[in-house]
């Protein structure tokens, strides 16, 4: 399959692994963060880390939008879903994220009309098919999903669909990266930059990382050879004393992003002053809400939302995992009280969450053996 097979070639993978081995300085420990949950998933699915020298460590970043949603936000969604006459729609993984008193899936089992959709456009279609019901779409995701929500809202407004609204929990990628870089307990040598977020925002917004924090960043694709090549490129920068943003994923990512996507987002959304991230706390200007021009489509203005902040469960260490301070298996409840079937923390919910990736691809058993 074009764009896939050639990036999974085992022989090329071995060549890249040999080059990486030759590029590392003996005695130096390298710590690179893959920002995106998609990379985390690929790394464990294809065993990319097994091809790396022992002194190259990959740290899993905060780039899974399910994993960063705080419990209070889930509670808000459940409160909306339980209102009479409401059809509440969301992406599949979001249904399993635990709130303080259960998940959306459990609320559905209790009788709330909660439906999984694959796209916001599906939610809009449900609204058109059920004009007597209020249909709310729970929008989550980084800049890759936000244009999809924005286009849907534009379409809903243009077509005059009065019973459709959106609970917007979209987030942006740059503010949490800045927060991580300002964190004193995190020491990194470089970043594997997010691939598809960069399709929208481009690679340019990450230039502050080499410029102000002195760390190289390489935007990378999601196939195993993409990730290996990105690591090779970061190591080359470090060896040559360079520090810049490079784009390994040129076949998909334009350096300046998608102008039309950015324009539609600017029209439909505006930045919230603060937004709470699970494990990272409140981060300024990191979340999106609907602009005044789209106020009538804003579920948080149309309905009463509790908006109560709920502390994460004490046993859960998703925060430290999201910051890359601990590995998933170092969490006290990993694989025991917290499993994909009964998750306590969000990192165990999404298939791209670091804990679920570790658990599903056998890391749990292996790491235990090592310990």
């Amino acid at each position, binding site marked *: 399959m074009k764009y896939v097979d050639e990036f999974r070639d085992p022989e090329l993978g071995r060549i890249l692994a040999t080059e990486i081995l030759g590029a590392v300085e003996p005695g130096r420990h390298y710590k690179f963060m893959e920002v995106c949950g998609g990379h985390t998933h690929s790394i464990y699915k294809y065993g990319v880390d097994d091809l790396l020298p022992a002194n190259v460590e990959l740290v899993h970043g905060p780039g899974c*939008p399910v994993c960063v949603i705080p419990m209070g936000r889930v509670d808000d969604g459940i409160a909306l879903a339980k209102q009479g006459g409401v059809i509440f729609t969301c992406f599949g993984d979001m249904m399993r994220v635990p709130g303080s008193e259960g998940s959306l899936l459990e609320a559905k089992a209790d009788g709330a009309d909660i439906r999984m959709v694959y796209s916001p456009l599906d939610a809009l279609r449900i609204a058109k098919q059920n004009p007597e019901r209020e249909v709310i779409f729970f929008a989550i*995701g980084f800049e890759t999903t936000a244009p*999809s929500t924005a286009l849907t809202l534009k379409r809903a407004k243009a077509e005059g669909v009065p019973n459709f609204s959106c609970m917007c929990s979209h987030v942006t990628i740059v503010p949490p990266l800045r927060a991580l870089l300002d964190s004193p307990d995190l020491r990194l040598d470089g970043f594997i930059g*997010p691939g598809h977020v960069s399709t929208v925002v481009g690679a340019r917004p990450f230039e502050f990382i080499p410029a102000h924090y002195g760390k190289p960043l390489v935007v990378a694709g999601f196939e195993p050879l993409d990730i290996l090549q990105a690591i090779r490129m970061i190591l080359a920068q470090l060896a040559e004393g360079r520090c810049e943003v490079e784009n390994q994923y040129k076949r998909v990512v334009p350096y300046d992003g998608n102008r039309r996507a950015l324009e539609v987002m600017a029209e439909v959304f505006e930045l919230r002053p603060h937004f709470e991230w699970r494990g990272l706390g409140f981060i300024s200007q990191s979340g999106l809400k609907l602009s005044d021009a789209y106020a009538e489509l804003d579920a948080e203005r149309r309905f009463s939302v509790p908006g109560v902040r709920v502390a994460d469960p004490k046993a859960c260490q998703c925060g430290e995992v999201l910051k890359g301070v601990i590995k998933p298996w170092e969490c006290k409840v990993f694989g025991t009280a917290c499993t994909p079937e009964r998750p306590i923390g969000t990192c165990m919910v999404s*298939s791209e969450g670091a804990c679920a990736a570790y658990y599903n691809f056998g890391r749990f058993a292996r790491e235990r053996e090592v310990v």
Partner: protein
Amino acid sequence: MSECGDHCITCSDEGVAMEVERVDVRRGLALCLAPDGSKSTVEIALVEPVAPGDRVLVHAGVALTELSA
């Protein structure tokens, strides 16, 4: 990018490479073919103009970029 396998549909960084089969210019939509053989209607406002045979990266029902050869 995913080939429609066990990927997380919610993640901002997952996309599916699809081939455009038919374009409805008036509605800004295209019928696209995924690698697993399934077909879906895709919003093309962000990548227009596209033509049958073009390949696009689709996320959450929206084509985000045209894939270069």
